[in-house]
């Protein structure tokens, strides 16, 4: 097998090994993300389960407040009626006070009505969130299933890669990584030899010649045809 082929094969196997490692890491990350997502969704679901009871409590409070305000309004109207019976000017102050009180209570009732409307909107929002939560759960479950199917495939891939490495090591006489490193070193040595040869030819001196001999021994052992 030519040196360049061995180098290419070793590089391919090395790349495949790195990709397999990255795939394993990605799978671990995805599993952790799915687990985290499930936990978060459960917390969200628990919060949503509690919301209707909270909403009922708030509605009860709103109803109690409304009744209290209605009673207070009646009291203000009764006070105004008493003032009216006293006549003008004796009852004027009482009538004015009762009128102011009635206006304030009327505004409070209006605000309470707004709260009741908001509560209704919140209930609708909760229902929408609950629907979305159901969809998110389904999507996450599908993701988990897909991940579950990918795990044995990734294990099979790892096994196949290991077998490929073993076979490559047998064919190359060494493991793919070492073979690739040695091939790369030989390439660089050849390039250096050519450079030194051109230096000698251009009269660069004895120092370069001294380096060429040991270099020839390295490159010549691998590919004698490229001796400079």
């Amino acid at each position, binding site marked *: 097998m030519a040196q360049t082929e061995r180098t290419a094969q070793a590089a391919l196997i090395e790349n495949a090994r790195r990709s397999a490692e990255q795939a394993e890491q990605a799978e671990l990350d995805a599993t952790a993300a799915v687990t985290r997502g499930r936990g978060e969704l459960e917390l969200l679901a628990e919060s949503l389960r509690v919301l209707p009871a909270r909403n009922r409590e708030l509605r009860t409070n709103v109803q109690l407040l409304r009744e209290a305000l209605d009673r207070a309004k*009646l009291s203000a109207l009764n006070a*105004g*009626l008493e003032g009216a019976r006293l006549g003008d000017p004796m009852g004027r102050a009482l*009538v004015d006070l009762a009128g102011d009180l009635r206006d304030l209570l009327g505004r409070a009732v209006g605000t309470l009505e707004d709260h009741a409307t908001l509560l209704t909107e919140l209930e609708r929002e909760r229902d929408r969130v609950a629907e979305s939560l159901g969809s998110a759960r389904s999507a996450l479950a599908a993701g988990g299933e897909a991940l579950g199917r990918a795990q044995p495939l990734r294990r099979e891939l790892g096994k196949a890669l290991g077998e490929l490495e073993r076979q490559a090591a047998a064919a190359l006489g060494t493991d793919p990584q070492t073979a690739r490193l040695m091939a790369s070193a030989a390439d660089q040595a050849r390039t250096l030899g050519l450079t030194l040869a051109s230096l000698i030819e251009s009269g660069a001196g004895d120092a370069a010649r001294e380096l060429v001999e040991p270099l020839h021994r390295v490159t010549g052992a691998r590919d004698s045809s490229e001796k400079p």
Partner: protein
Amino acid sequence: MAQRAGLVVRGRSGLHFIPATIARSLVAAPEVSPVPGAGIGMALVSGEVVAVLPLGSRAGALVVCEVDGELVGFAGLQPEASGFFDEIEGGVRFDSEPALDLDLAAALRNVDERRGFSHGPD
């Protein structure tokens, strides 16, 4: 402008005025027991049993009035305001809207006529 003292309520046909000499008090709608065949009900108000006459469909307070010396509760009216109001012909003005006098005695007579009773000497 002359003013009249009393209570403005909202009924089936708009705003009405009840003079302070007739309107005694407003109470939260009590439980009313219907009287069969009479078109009225009875309720306990401040320890007293009073006849309750429905004058509208609005839920809310009971307007307790003194009509011909009797305490009568009128249900289905929504009290709007109490105090002094500008007088207009046949009633008062409230928030630039006319509130006509509510003839409670006539309403009571109508019920009595349906029951076959009569008030006072013929």
